[in-house]
């Protein structure tokens, strides 16, 4: 494929030319009410072209891919380049010395069949029935190929697979949720994931109402991941940082969180299912955003690195990208305590499985709101005593991270690789009817 893309470079008369090709083969089986109700296979491409004429830059994008398409895309990108002149633009990324090989591709995941996905769902449904529950969720197996070439000689190509199982167990008055992801379908423990959702649903039966207010919370890894994921949109990219929109703006070197909090981006950690290069072919580098509570850095792409004279950390999204660079392989560092101890040493608090519909009320302050979902429990004197109805939080999340007083040694890979964490005095402002 690289050779075909390199041939296409010769169709352009620009000073610099970049061609990006993405191909995804996805199999997805959705189930609900304990039956498969949506089941699909899709195969599609993104062909993205970027041309540079001096300081003028133009792009175009299509899902088609053939020689005639390439000519038309170059024509469109050239046309748009006449209107975009950016004095801060320096160059596309240069030819890279090499890329670290990542073993994030699995033949077994890529070739997993609809019949095999159906078998998994059938077994999950049986487990649910034994417990008097119904189930909803999905199993997806995805194989993605990415290639980038540009006229500086940069050539990058890789393949990655991802399998993900999400299971909601549903009882008459309570639900439970669990999920697991890996590049390798064989590493997903289907029965353990389903059983975890079942246990939560059974334990969530007949929740009672509690008064909103400030509670110590133990966040399971999914809930921790939800917080950090949203934080990353607002605070960890160079554009927001240099435009003074990020919480970390002008705070590098300052203590912004508890010393127990370390958050970084590392595509080379196998748990993150990362890529060795970004969407403009620059090699990815590990970046630490918060180290033992201290603000350390943000992610850059080639444009922002050139503009603000920093090292390119390889975090470009697909151009044109007005949002700036963005981390995609986030990890919160594990602590030292066994996860159960976070609960056992909590006098009164809430155990939270996951959050839902987190939204940002004030981005620079990191003021978030959102709901708990699929398993919220009261902790009393070190034990989980009863399920409670879901609550709405409203909280400045960076402030909350200064109140982290315990972090588990166990982590799980979700959208962020995250541990169980305990936060004092999280602010809940209301509740719902279930």
């Amino acid at each position, binding site marked *: 494929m690289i050779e075909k893309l390199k041939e296409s470079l010769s169709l352009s008369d620009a000073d610099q030319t970049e061609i990006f090709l993405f191909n995804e083969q*996805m199999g*997805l089986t959705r189930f*609900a009410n304990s*039956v*498969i*109700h949506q*089941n*699909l*296979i*899709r*195969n*599609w*491409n993104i062909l993205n072209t970027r041309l540079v004429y001096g300081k003028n830059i133009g*792009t175009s*994008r*299509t*899902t088609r891919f053939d020689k005639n398409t390439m000519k038309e895309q170059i024509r*469109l990108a050239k*046309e*748009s380049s006449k*209107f*975009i002149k*950016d004095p801060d633009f320096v160059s596309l990324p240069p030819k890279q010395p090499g890329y670290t090989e990542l073993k994030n591709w699995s033949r077994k995941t890529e070739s997993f069949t*609809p*019949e095999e*996905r*159906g078998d998994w*769902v*059938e077994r999950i449904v049986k487990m649910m029935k034994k417990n008097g529950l*119904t189930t*909803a*969720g*999905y199993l*997806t197996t995805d194989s993605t190929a990415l290639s980038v070439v540009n006229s500086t000689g940069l050539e990058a190509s890789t393949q990655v697979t991802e399998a993900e199982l*999400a299971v*909601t167990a*549903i009882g008459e008055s309570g*639900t439970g949720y669990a999920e697991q992801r890996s590049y390798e379908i064989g590493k997903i423990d289907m029965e353990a994931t389903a059983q975890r959702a079942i246990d939560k649903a059974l334990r969530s039966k007949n929740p009672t109402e509690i008064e909103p207010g400030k509670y110590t919370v133990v966040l399971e890894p999914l809930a921790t991941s939800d917080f950090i994921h949203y934080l990353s949109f607002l605070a960890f990219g160079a554009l927001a940082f240099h*435009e003074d*929109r990020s919480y970390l703006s002008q705070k590098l070197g300052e203590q912004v969180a508890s010393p127990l909090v370390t958050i970084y981006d590392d595509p080379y950690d196998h748990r993150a299912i990362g890529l060795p290069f970004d969407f403009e072919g620059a090699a990815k580098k590990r970046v630490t955003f918060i180290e033992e509570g201290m603000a350390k850095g943000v992610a850059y792409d080639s444009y922002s690195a050139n503009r603000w004279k920093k090292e390119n950390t390889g975090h470009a999204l697909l151009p*044109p990208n007005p949002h700036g660079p963005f981390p995609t392989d986030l990890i919160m560092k594990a602590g030292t305590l066994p996860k159960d101890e976070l609960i056992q040493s909590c006098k009164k608090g809430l155990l939270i499985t996951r959050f*839902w*519909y987190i*939204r940002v*009320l*004030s*981005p*620079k*302050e990191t*003021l978030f*709101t*959102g*709901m708990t979902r699929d398993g919220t429990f009261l902790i009393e004197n070190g034990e989980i005593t009863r399920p409670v109805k879901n609550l*709405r939080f*409203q909280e400045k999340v960076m402030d909350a991270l200064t109140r982290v007083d315990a972090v588990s040694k166990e982590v799980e890979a979700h959208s962020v690789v995250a541990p169980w964490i305990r936060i004092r005095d999280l*602010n809940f402002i*209301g*509740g*719902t009817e*279930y």
Partner: protein
Amino acid sequence: MRIVEEMKETLLVKNGKVEMIELTEDFGFGVRTIVGGAWGFASSAELKREQVEKTAQLSCRVAKASRKAMEKEVSLAASRGIVDSYRTPYETDPFGVSLAKKLELLMEAEKLMRKVKGVAITEAEMLTWKTKKWFASTDGSMIDQELLGTGTQLRATAMKNGDMQVRSYPNLQGQYAAKGYELIDSLKLTDNAERVAEEAVALLSAKPCPHQQSNLILDSALTAIYIHESVGHPTELDRVLGTEANFAGTSHLTLDKRGQFQFASPEVQIVADATIPTGLGTFGWDDEGIEASNFHLVKDGMFVGYLTSRETAPVVEARSNGTMRADSWKNLPLIRMTNINLLPGKGSLDEIVANTDEGFYFEGFKTVSIDDKRLNFSLGPEIGWAIKKGKRDYMVKNPVFTGISYKVWRSCDWIGGEEDWVLWGEPYCGKGEPIQVMRVGHGAPPVRFKNVLIGAKS
């Protein structure tokens, strides 16, 4: 089978320069099948005879695999074969307007915002799209449609001492409609640019929104998003029947409540109207070949109707009301909102304010969150003002409005009239796995709620 071709153009001007011209072409086809009573779907970007046959066979194979977890065979509400066409009516094709002209307008509006002292970031954006769809089914339908839309927005961001405030026009997500370039002309960006920039700066020194019970007036943009979250989503029958339980959630508007549940005050009339001109949820036929329709979801405050599909409709009535749409050729159609409209009452926004002795007025949508059964919500407007003796008093920043959705609707005591009724376009409604982003519409006037909770305890 659906073949879909979409052209999209997004323009962004930021801080005095053209930041982005994004030209996107999306083309391919999808085949949805029922084999042995179970669903299958496959899609491909390569529209060649051999590939179509292969994709159809793959779809059948996927359907057969679905039988591994099946309780009963899929049964669809009746549909008649349709052979017809639909085109969005418009005056000026936005793709026929030169890039230079469009960018000139955005640059001019952005420059006016930038003139205002204290503004840190200024942005002006324009989006246009044209979608061609060809639908054929074994019921005998052959339908082609061309849907066109445009939209635009201005955003001014002001920052001081760690505070950041954004003000937008016509709304933070813009205004979009199934119209041609005439929409852009009608919105008069340059007439509103300085005002929104000035308000962004003024918000920095505004008082914080207090936490209290209060009478509350929402402008039509906020009413629209409140309708979206508290009426549109919970009346999707697939959610009600549990098929989105893993992600988007279910609904408190369960089957037993239809025709029995006083959802809102008796003045409230809400319809789902896929036939109204210029709506983003307006079309000729849905992605199952069912004709666009207009029907009540809430009548005299009573919850009476659902958005349905051919598969779900038989649970409540004989026929689908035509709300199945997919966001592209590569995804399955789902039940989606069309244009969910609160029908107008009487009186302008100014009259509502003038007749409110004490309370708050909130304007401009910033953010919203709601639980997975659509009960507890939090609505975050851009700006608010206290109202005292029928007049706007001081400005408040970071306003928040929370509550239980149906209880708040029951407290609605004034629905504004046609003069301030706007059919808003919402181009970014998310649902499904993998997530699909749909264009929907909401017609809304300003409304007033009595004694609701604003602000939040910190």
